[in-house]
């Protein structure tokens, strides 16, 4: 039962951390709960579909379909998170201050929320499909311990969701002055971590060279299977043995999104001066 709880926890954690951060980052946007719930439901449905067609996806593109699929899902999520952060850099502060007309805030908020709905949906889809396959394996094996294994799965699910909620609640306690900077940095690191994961899948499929691999090895000091390692992996994309190519993807995403945020912020400031 314990082993099952750990596996499900690991799968759920990444999606839960992302939802916690996204939910906090969008707290000032009207109607965001409905959008997040819609993303969650779509993701769960998608997870079932992906799990059911795991065979078909895996055999696509002469056996590297699974890697391509994961890299694509991660890539889209990175772009959406980038868009969110750049949008927030230009609109977030105004939204929070309530300075804009309610109508336009809702209209802009809708587009923003639909982007985040996709991000949440994709995260749930990716992590959820593996959980579905795992639980299906337990249920199908007809072993005597099945009920206790499923209980373990439920425990893992609850633990993962609790961590996501703890992150959300913790973020809400940050004073408003630093709130957008804090969530912005978290989303930025989240996106960079996903870019690095996408690179890892492309290396595994032999579509990219690994370059220097591993670039470093901190698996003794901070193993990825430990709780802090898992958390850091979900939060900032920590990898105990990353390849050079993963680092390139990580840094590229980090620098591009950060410069985008800076540009957006500056153009808003310039616009305000003109008015």
């Amino acid at each position, binding site marked *: 039962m314990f082993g099952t709880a750990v596996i499900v926890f690991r799968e759920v954690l990444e999606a839960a951390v992302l939802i916690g951060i996204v939910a906090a980052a969008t707290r000032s946007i009207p109607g965001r709960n409905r959008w997040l719930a819609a993303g969650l439901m779509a993701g769960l449905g998608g997870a079932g579909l992906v799990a059911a067609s795991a065979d078909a996806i895996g055999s696509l593109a002469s056996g590297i379909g699974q890697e391509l699929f994961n890299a694509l899902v991660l890539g889209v999520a990175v772009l959406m998170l980038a868009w969110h952060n750049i949008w927030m850099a230009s609109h977030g502060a105004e939204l929070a201050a309530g300075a804009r007309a309610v109508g336009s805030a809702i209209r802009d908020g809708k587009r923003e929320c639909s982007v985040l709905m996709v991000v949440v949906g994709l995260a749930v889809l990716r992590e959820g499909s593996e959980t579905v396959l795992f639980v299906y394996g337990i249920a199908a094996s007809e072993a005597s311990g099945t009920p206790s294994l499923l209980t373990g799965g439920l425990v893992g699910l609850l633990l993962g969701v609790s961590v996501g909620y703890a992150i959300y609640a913790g973020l809400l306690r940050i004073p408003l002055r630093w709130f957008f900077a804090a969530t912005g940095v978290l989303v930025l690191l989240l996106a960079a971590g996903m870019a690095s994961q996408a690179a890892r899948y492309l290396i595994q499929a032999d579509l990219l060279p690994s370059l220097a*691999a591993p670039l470093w090895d901190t698996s003794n000091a901070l193993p990825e299977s430990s709780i802090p390692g898992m958390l850091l992996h979900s939060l900032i994309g920590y990898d105990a043995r990353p390849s050079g190519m993963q680092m390139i993807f990580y840094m590229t995403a980090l620098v591009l999104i950060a410069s985008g945020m800076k540009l957006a912020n500056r153009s808003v400031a310039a616009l305000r001066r003109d008015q």
Partner: protein
Amino acid sequence: MKTAAKDFPRSLGFAYIMLILLAPIQVLGADGEYSLVIQEHRFQPAELTIPAGKKVKLLIENRDATPEEFESHALNREKVIPGKSSASIFIGPLKPGRYPFVGEFNEKTAKGVIIVQ
């Protein structure tokens, strides 16, 4: 300034597409293929020796009816292998050493190690 900010997501996407398109040019084919079989939630063989400094292709056949996830933190690889199907994973080039792997869905029995010499 305003248009630069607007065009930004597009240039970001473009940069990624260029990275993905250009990088495979340097990729050389794998130096060898090695087979693993999953049966009754165990890997056969449980030890596999591969040469150091070379990229190799692992062909993993899952003969069980249930899915399995090949996972190795040491190799930095993970891949779900559905029941009654095969999957391939590229690993290396690696330094000499022992690289353990597990079937994450049945970690108690599905264990193995890749020995790089």
